[in-house]
């Protein structure tokens, strides 16, 4: 159990921010990954289905992070 508790993948999820925080104090959580809202809007507009769903749910879904 212990061997897994803090084990993070070595390949793709080991993050540069983690390294930064490790070396210079501060916490990883202090760093804020920026959401590129414009890119998201672009993506939604690019695909017709996504656009439709988005329009339908416009009021219902409130974009937020959970994890």
């Amino acid at each position, binding site marked *: 159990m212990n061997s897994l508790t803090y084990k993070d993948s070595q390949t793709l999820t080991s993050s540069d921010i983690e390294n930064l925080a490790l070396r210079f104090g501060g916490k990883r959580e202090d760093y804020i990954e920026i959401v590129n809202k414009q890119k998201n809007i672009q993506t939604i507009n690019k695909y017709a289905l996504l656009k439709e769903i988005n329009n339908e749910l416009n009021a*219902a879904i409130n974009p937020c992070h959970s*994890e």
Partner: protein
Amino acid sequence: MQRIFVKGIKGGLGSTSVVANLACVLKKSHVNVIAIDLDPKSDLGLHFGLPWKSTKGWSNEVNFEDVLLHFHQDSDGVIFLPFGDINVDQNDIAHIVNNCKKLDCPQNSWFLFDCPSYIDLAHLPLEPNDIVIELINCDATCHSLIYKRLKKLKSTDSSWKHYFLVNRYNSASVLEFDLFSLWQSTLPLMAPFFINSDEVIKESTAYRNVALNCAPYSIANDDFETLAGWLVSKAAL
């Protein structure tokens, strides 16, 4: 005891192989793992090296005492229970899930349930500590299904921990990349990582094994380790 329910948001998303590999990773970190096949396809056994001719499972038995006879153990030490070849209804599934609690096993055991995609979560006896992983692929159908699922989750009071996990992700595809970026930044309940599409997952079944044993150097291996680590951090154990 931690219970994990893995299901695809639709059929054919590879939930069985995710369960098999996850079970294997967890077992390798020396916890007790019990995988239970709730899918009438009854193919979980294939991943664990169950002989092809053996078709019986829990659905063939009426009493739970008799079900005990159908538990097998694979070469890595994962204990698993095949489905069998009898048709059952949702109540039977709920029944067997409940019965598994009666098993006498160590406190830190993990139960992995391979659920069929059509199963209604509301019919399962889910508890607040249970984790439901709903597999998705980066395609438009899943996009629509996710939003339907979110709607449903919101309307019913779902007390369990529900997560979406992207399986078979291929970042070279523009659509997949776009969808994944969008989901990751807008969807709640998204797992913060994904399982990469990898030939070895397919191949390993053909070799009667799991990806973990076939290709320890593959990214898939790492992905499952990440998944396991993340689950441990979410678990209530």
